[in-house]
Structures are given as C-alpha cells and as structure tokens.
C-alpha cells in the first residue's frame, strides 16, 4: 500500500520520557511514512498515550527527538504544532461543546491566516473577507464528512459517533500533513467503528493525509493500518505489517500474558 516512493514524513528517534522514577517511554524509534496509516497498539500502560502527547507537544520527552520533514518539533509550543502540519483528535472527544458544528470547524481553521484583533473588533473589510473564506473552507470539510445537515447544531446535542466526525472535520480544516488519532474507536458500537474506519481510509485516500492511529480496537487497526507499531512497558515490541504483528509471539504474549510479566 505504500506505493512508489514511501518517504518518511515523521521520525520518532530514541524518544524516552520519565515521570519521577517511572519510565513511561524508553528509546522508542520508528518512522511514519507519507500517506500511510500507521497503527500504534499496545496494552494499557504501554505508553501509547504518552507518545501521542509527546507528538502533540503536551509532554516534553526527556531524551530523543521527533522530527517532521527533518525539523525537530520539540521546541514548538503546543499551539504552534499545527503550523508544522500536525493535527489531532482527542481520546474522549474534546470539542467545544456549547458551540455549533460550524464554529467548531472554523476554530480548527484558526491557524489558517494571521492574527487580526483590530480588524476583528472594528469589523474591517479584511475581517469579513477572511471570515467568508474560512466559512467556505469549513463547509467543504463539513460536506466531505457528511455533516452538512447538522452544521448549525450545538455539538453537545449530537450523538457521540457524530461528534467524532465533527472532531475529524475540525482537525482536517487545517490541511494537516499528519493526522494524529487518539483512540477514535473508543465509545463507539461495532457498526460505528467500521464506519469510522471507512472515514479514516477515505481521508487518507482522498486528501492524502498521513494518519497515526493510536488504538485499542484490534479489529479496526488490523483492517485499515498499512503498518503497525506495538508498544509494551514503554518500549517498542514489534513493527511490521498487520498480519506480521498479529502473529508476532511477543505481541501475543503482551496481550494474553505469559511467563514474562
């Protein structure tokens, strides 16, 4: 599936992080290639979310580096990460609950365009023009994700599955190179999970977005990921195609338990 030149987009190099005496990540290294869907799996406490938070700049790794397009992102503040082409969703949906779908998506487009406090307060023509552009862009993404009918609804009134799609729309409007998905299947029923899998594939195929999928739900990961990285106790256990990972003895042991605790 990694057709043609599978160039690397992001590289995680020997990333380690410790909280007090606890080593949460230890020398994790892998690449994310352009236009691939990379699954990141592991049992509870394996370090998936910690790694995710390093990528989205909520945590600072104690050692190692994370580079996108050869440039380190470790000096970016969290709010600048979107300018490096990285967008994300949250584990339990972190939408702006009291705002409409359209407003949520428009906030996702915040990084497109300069700050404009004066123009905004005085409603200068430049503000109106940018506002119309942003609304049009937001409507495109909303349509892409099949949310047009609910665009005026307040997010808190929507079912969880729909909220997940709103969150995808909010992430996609920034036109990211890399989309980080933190357990997108959580809280969804069986059918919704596979519908979501289709949406994720659709995003990669149609928009050319690379996707890092941190996920508990094996079925989803195995059905849509091109490659999978498995973590356990903060270390990389295995890396490879879904079929290889599924039969990898270390991975099986990590999930089912074995002699090694």
């Amino acid at each position: 599936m990694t057709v043609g030149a599978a160039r690397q987009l992001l590289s995680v190099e020997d990333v380690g992080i410790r909280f007090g005496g606890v080593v949460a990540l230890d020398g994790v290294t892998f690449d994310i290639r352009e236009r691939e869907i990379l699954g990141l799996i592991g049992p509870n406490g394996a370090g998936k979310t910690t790694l995710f938070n390093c990528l989205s700049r909520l945590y600072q790794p104690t050692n190692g580096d994370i580079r996108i397009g050869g440039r380190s992102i470790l000096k970016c503040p969290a709010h600048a990460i979107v300018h490096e082409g990285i967008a994300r969703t949250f584990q339990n949906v972190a939408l702006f609950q009291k705002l409409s779908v359209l407003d949520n998506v428009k906030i996702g487009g915040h990084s497109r365009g300069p700050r404009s406090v004066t123009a905004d307060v005085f409603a200068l023509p430049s503000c109106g023009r940018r506002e119309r552009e942003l609304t049009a862009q937001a409507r495109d993404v909303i349509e892409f994700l099949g949310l047009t009918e609910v665009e005026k609804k307040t997010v808190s009134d929507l079912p969880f599955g729909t909220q997940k799609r709103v969150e995808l729309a909010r992430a996609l409007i920034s036109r990211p190179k890399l989309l980080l998905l933190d357990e997108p299947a959580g809280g969804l029923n069986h059918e919704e999970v596979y519908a979501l899998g289709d949406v994720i594939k659709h995003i990669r195929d149609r928009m050319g977005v690379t996707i890092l999928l941190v996920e508990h739900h094996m079925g989803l990961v195995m059905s849509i990921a091109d490659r999978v990285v498995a973590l356990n106790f903060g270390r990389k256990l295995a890396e490879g195609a879904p079929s290889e990972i599924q039969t990898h003895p270390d991975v099986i042991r990590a999930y089912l338990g074995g002699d090694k605790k």
Partner: protein
Amino acid sequence: MSVLPDTSIARNDSTSSIGIRTILLRWSRPLALLVLVLLPLAASDFVTFQLTMLLVYAVALIALNVLTGFTGQFSLGQNAFFGIGGYSAVIVVEHFHLSYLLGIPVAGVIAAIAGILFAFPALRLKGVYLALATFALGTTIPQLLKLDYIEQWTGGVQGMMIEKPMTPLGLPLSQDAYLYYLTLTIALGIYILSVNLLHSKTGRAMLAIRENETAAAAMGVDVAYYKTIAFGLSAAFTGVSGALGAIVIQFVSPDAYTIQLAVAIFLGIVIGGVGWLPGTIVGAAFIVFVPNVAESISKGLSGAVFGVLILLVIFVFPRGAQQVCDRLLGVEHKKD
C-alpha cells in the same frame, strides 16, 4: 460512510407562533434602542441620572462578559479597572484640562495597560485561583488610591470632584440629558465592538479557550495571547465605563470603588446571562434599581431582601435574563 444518525433531538419550534417570534427577534434590538433614545424625554433629571448609571454599568457588564462570558476567565476585581478609569478621567480633565471627550478614551487606554500588566501573572492561574488573584487586585487598588504619596493627584481619602460637562454646540438638551446621550452613544459603540468581536476569529479563539484550553491550543490558538487580549479589552471597556461613571456622579473617591462594586458587576453578568450581551441591560437594571426596590420593601432588612431576590433569580433562572428570553421565544438552546 455511515448513515447520518438522528439529530433532531433539540428541535423545539412549534410552528404556530413562529411568525410572532421572528418579528420579536428581528425588531427587539431596534425597539430597545428606540426606548433608550426616547426614555429621557419623559423622565425627570433624577431618573435620567439613574438611567445614565444603568448604561454605565451595562458597559462594565459587557466588559466582564468579554473576559468571563467569552473567554471563561473569572474576575472579582473589575472595580480596580473601573476605579482606574474613573480616576484617570478626572485627573486628565481636572489636572491636565483635557476635554471630557478625550478624557474618556485616555481612561480606557490607561485601564487597558493596567489590564494587560495584570494579565501576565494571571495567565498562570485558573478557576478559583484566578478569581482570588483578581479579588486581591480589587481589594488593593482602592487602598492604593488613598496613599499620601499621590494625594496631590488623587485627592487622597477625600477623593476629587469633577464638573458636569456643558452641553456642546448649543444642543437643546439639559446637561443631564446630554450626558445620557453621550453615555448611550459610547455604550452602543462598545456593544457593537463586542458583537463584532464575538463573531470573528478572535472571538472564536476566546470561546475555544473558555470551552477547552487544551483543544484550543491544539487548533493553533495561542492561549496566553488571547487571554491577554481578553484582559486588555475587558479592562479598556471597564475603564471607559468607570470614566463615564465618574463624570456622571461628578466625584471619585476610593470608597466608591470597593470590592462591593466588583461583586455587583459579577452579579450583573449572572443576572443578565453569562456571555449573553443583550442581558447586560437587564443585569445593569438589577444593579441600579433592585437595591431601591429592596429598600422600599423593608428599610431595615433591605440587604436581606436583596439577597433573597438574588437567590430567587439564581434558583428559578440560573442562566439569568437569557433563560427568560429563551423561554419566551421557545428556544431550547441558544448562544449569542
């Protein structure tokens, strides 16, 4: 892609009275404006004075709404910015002999600077801690105004007088009426600026911070920057309102700007509906008139009556005037 789930949960429009509602919604603002323009023509000087104070508080409530309603940052120290605005205006007009019309924006700028300076430490604080820090500001500033050091500028404990501005250009208005229309114009201006803000990129960034800071940052919203802007703008508007208040009352003193004023302003936005700009008029009316009503019910227990009235409002209509309005119009969820 999956079929769209049923999303028709929050519908609540019964079709029968929709015509009246639409008319009400469309005309409520021009109508309110017309009432505000015509009111002083029928009112005594004292009532005009009260109405002017109502508008002054309305501006202070809009200002706190920018900070708390839009951005979600609590402040129990708005009296500080109100006082800074009031003193600045009086000093600029009385000591530097600038015109009133210049004194008011200067007061806004000085208060804005104070607000931005205060934002730097405040950025590190959240929730109750921020409320406490602003409370500290609100208790400190009135005391500082009493200092001997700056007495030649501030008049110390006694405060300072300022004259009412003369009606300019030979307009056929009493001084009180002129002051009313000046305040109305400025209040309207600030109202419009705030509405502009709310419907803009900057306003949405503020709402995003209110709703979820982590998510806002992930969207590229520079949280510290927009909080600073919110503090600055809020302080500027509060400063303008303080300047107008000082001119209307013709007097500034440290005791006019105690923490009680901050509590009143905070109460005002809750009564009006937090984040709902039209509610600021209702909140301001509550601040100006309800203490009098309480006093007319019982002179000795006016404070208790006032307290009971507040409790009634927050139990029956926790979202304040916004909720009353929504109910009248049959809207289930609304934001503006």
